[in-house]
Structure formats: C-alpha cells, structure tokens
C-alpha cells in the first residue's frame, strides 16, 4: 500500500506554501519530513490525510487518484489513514472513549446506538482494540480517567493510541513530540517503531533532526517551497546532496 503526493502545489489565498512537491510512503516504513517551522510540513500532512485537495498535482492511494473518486470512496481511503497532531486535541471524554473514537465511527449506526445504550448501563463492549492501543503507549491503567486529567505527555500518548486503535495502514504524525519531555518522547518514538514493525507506514513531520535520525528509514527535506531531497536517512544526514540541506542540518541556515 502506498500513499503518494505527486507534483503537488498548494497555498492559501495568493500565498503559495509549496510548489511541485512529491513524496510517498509505503506500509512498513517510516518517512520523516524535516524542515523549519512554518515551512508547510503540516500543510503537506493535511493533504496526505485528505483534508484538502491540492491546488495542483495528485494525491493517490495505491495508484488511485483520491480526489477523482466519489466522496464515499475517499472516505474509505481516509479510514485507512490515522493522524496525530502537535496538540493532542483529545475530546472532553474518558480516555477509553477517546481511544475508541475511530472504532466507533467505523461502526454502523444500529451498532453505535446499541453500544451507546450498553455504555449507559455501564458495559464497555467493543473497546478491546482501544485498550490494546493504550497498552502500546503504556496507559492501559488510565482507561477510565477523564482525558482532561492527563498530563500533556500522557494526552499526546492517548492521541497516538487513538490513531493506532483502528489499525490504519498509514499513520501521519505532525510534530508529535515537540511539546513533550524526553521520557514521553521516547515512548512515542518506541510506539512509532512498533507500528512500523506491524507493517504500518508512518510519516513524521518534525523539526527535530535527531528524532528523524532515530526513527526514520527515509527523510525528506522541505525548505523554501520545495522538497530539496528525499532519500535514506543516513544518506541525507551524512552526505547531503543539496547545499541548503547541509546548511540546515549544520544549523547554519538562517530562516
């Protein structure tokens, strides 16, 4: 399975964020997008998550141009993708309900109503996968707590579990650890590698180059309005082909 952006340009109003960008991710690999803040990493991830259609170029899933498909088909594609934002963005609900959200929206309405009634009388059916995902991030013991009682790091781990619970083929992470302490960062990075080993394709947008080195099989460098290079992580860091990449990695580039 491959999610691919081909020659994509996008902007807001008259402002172009990037122009002619191509990037792909396949199941079972981790791709990092590195670049300074504000360069458009989040915008690229939103395009890959099928939030918006690109101004030009194509987003395809397994060779199907997604934006040429009817909305129902696009929803099927969207449901094979998970996303974690920089901000945990948890719902005002219990940890279990947050983690099970993706599973719930995939149920038919009669099932959802039946589970809703079951929960009213205290039964917690059909949330096994959510609890399993919470175990991956070490928070299975917090399953019945309110989400707003969690620390920032725990909340982000729940957000990760929420995206993992419905077993996506592709997982998109937008600066998932930028506000976290080293311990929580390590938990998330470990979960990323576990997800890859389970065959999930992961894209991590980050400005933390060390993180890219730690988790990514391939790295794309987004600078200015283009991807300067994308290749195996060691090659990009140890032998950058573009001079601006080298300057960015060495911290010499002023932006």
């Amino acid at each position, binding site marked *: 399975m491959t999610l691919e952006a081909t020659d994509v340009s996008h902007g807001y109003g008259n402002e172009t964020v990037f122009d002619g960008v191509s990037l792909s991710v396949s199941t079972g690999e981790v791709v990092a997008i590195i670049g300074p803040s504000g360069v458009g990493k989040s915008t690229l991830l939103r395009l890959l998550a099928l*939030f918006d259609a690109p101004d030009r170029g194509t987003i395809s899933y397994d060779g199907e141009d997604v934006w040429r498909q009817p909305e129902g088909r696009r929803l099927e594609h969207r*449901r094979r*993708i998970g996303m974690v*934002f920089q901000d945990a*963005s*948890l*719902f*005002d609900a219990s940890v279990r309900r947050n983690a099970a*959200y993706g599973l719930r929206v995939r149920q038919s309405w009669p099932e959802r109503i039946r589970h809703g009634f079951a929960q009213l009388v205290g039964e917690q059916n059909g949330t096994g996968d959510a609890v399993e995902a919470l175990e991956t991030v070490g928070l299975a013991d917090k399953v019945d707590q309110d989400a707003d009682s969690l620390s920032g790091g725990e909340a982000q781990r729940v957000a990760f579990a929420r995206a993992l619970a*419905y077993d996506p083929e592709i997982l998109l992470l937008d600066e998932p650890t930028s506000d976290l302490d080293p311990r929580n960062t390590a938990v998330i990075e470990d979960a990323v590698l576990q997800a890859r080993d389970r065959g999930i394709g992961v894209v991590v947008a980050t400005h933390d180059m060390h993180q890219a080195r730690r988790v990514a099989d391939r790295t794309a460098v987004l600078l200015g309005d283009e991807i300067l290079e994308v290749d195996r992580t060691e090659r990009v860091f140890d032998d950058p082909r573009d001079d601006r990449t080298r300057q960015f990695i060495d911290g010499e580039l002023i932006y």
Partner: protein
Amino acid sequence: MSLESAATVPLFAEFPFEWNYIRSIIVVSLYVSVAAVALSTLCSLPIALAVGFTDFRGKGLLTSIINTGMGFPSVVVGLAVLFTVSNEGPLGSLELVFTREAMIMSQFVLAAPVVTGVSLAAVSSVEQNVRDAAYAMGGTRLDVALVTIKEARYGIATAVLAGFGRAISEVGSVLIVGGNIASADGTSKTRTLTTAIQLEAQRGRFETAMILGVVLLAIVLVVNGIVVRLGSDGGGYR
C-alpha cells in the same frame, strides 16, 4: 400590635387560591414553553452548526441579525404572530387565535434567536483542532458535527435554559396571542404563570399572584440547577 389583633390576621391556609386553578396554569405554562423551546432547539442547533462551521459572505451580518433577535420586544412579536394567525393573516384558515399553539408560535419566535445565538457562541468556541481530530479519525461531517455538539454541550444546555427562561417569563406576546383565557370550569385555557400574575395583581388578589410568582421562580431555579449540575459533572461522557 397586641396578640389579640395579630390573631385576626388571615392565616396562610385561608388565602384565596385554588389548587386546580394554579395547577392548570402551571401545566399550560410548561406545555407552551417546553414545546416552544424544544422546537427552537431543533431548528436552532443545525443553524448554529452550519453558521459556526462555514465561512461565507454575510456571516457577520447573519450573526448580528441573530443577536438582534435576542432582544425582540415580545409585544411586537405577539402582534406579528397575532396578525399571522388572524382571519386575514396567512395562517388564518388554521383558526389559531387565542390557542396554546399560537402561544407556542410566539414563544418560538422569541426563544429561537436566544437558543441560536448562545449555541452559536458555544459551537464556535470548540477548537478547530478537536474537529480536525474527529475528521482525521475517519469521521464523516455528521460525526464531526456530533463531536462538536458533545464538546459544546454545556454551552448548548445554557442556550436551551436561556431560551426557556425567555419563554416562560415572557408576558407580552402570550397575552396578545393567547388572550389569558380561563375555561368555564375555572381552569386555565391559555392562561400562563406570567399572564395570571398580571391578572391576579390587577384584581387585587395579591396572595394568588405571589404564589404564582414563587412557582415561576422555583421552575426557573430548578431548570438552572439542572444545567449547573450538568456542567459540573466533570464534563466527561464515558
């Protein structure tokens, strides 16, 4: 005042009110206000969600109109509804003049902008990130709307309460379209707590007016208490 003269003051139990009369007034008041607010909520929530979710030209103007609607003078609304349901009006054939249904219509017009305006503020305060998260997890637009309603539930409950408060404590329009009528058996037909208080005070039956006033206050307090309880429940739906 001597003890003898104090003993001649009428006791509470001797006040000239009739329970059946008061009970029927409470029933009519609750029926009309609850029906009006339920209808307002059904109409207002989709409007609040649609306006809150989308950007379009004239959004600011529409929001201003909704907010202006919160301050509609009730007698003017009553007059407009009375014209609408009168024989010459567009709904004249339905013969709704001086009926509870006409009162529901007028209270609907008064409550709907309040429910819409306060709901819109509540819905707009739900962070874009949370809506994005629902969408990114595979939610449809309906799922995102449901998440938004759940996130804004306390604000929406407040909106419904505010609409109910506006409806049940309003006197001008229900007086005009309902006529403050009691049936031949002495029970209320279109008489509400507010119009009855006005009438009883005019008649000089202050004790009955006071009882009705206390009942009205109690209803508003109970509804308010329920909403505060909802809001302080830890907020979480499990």
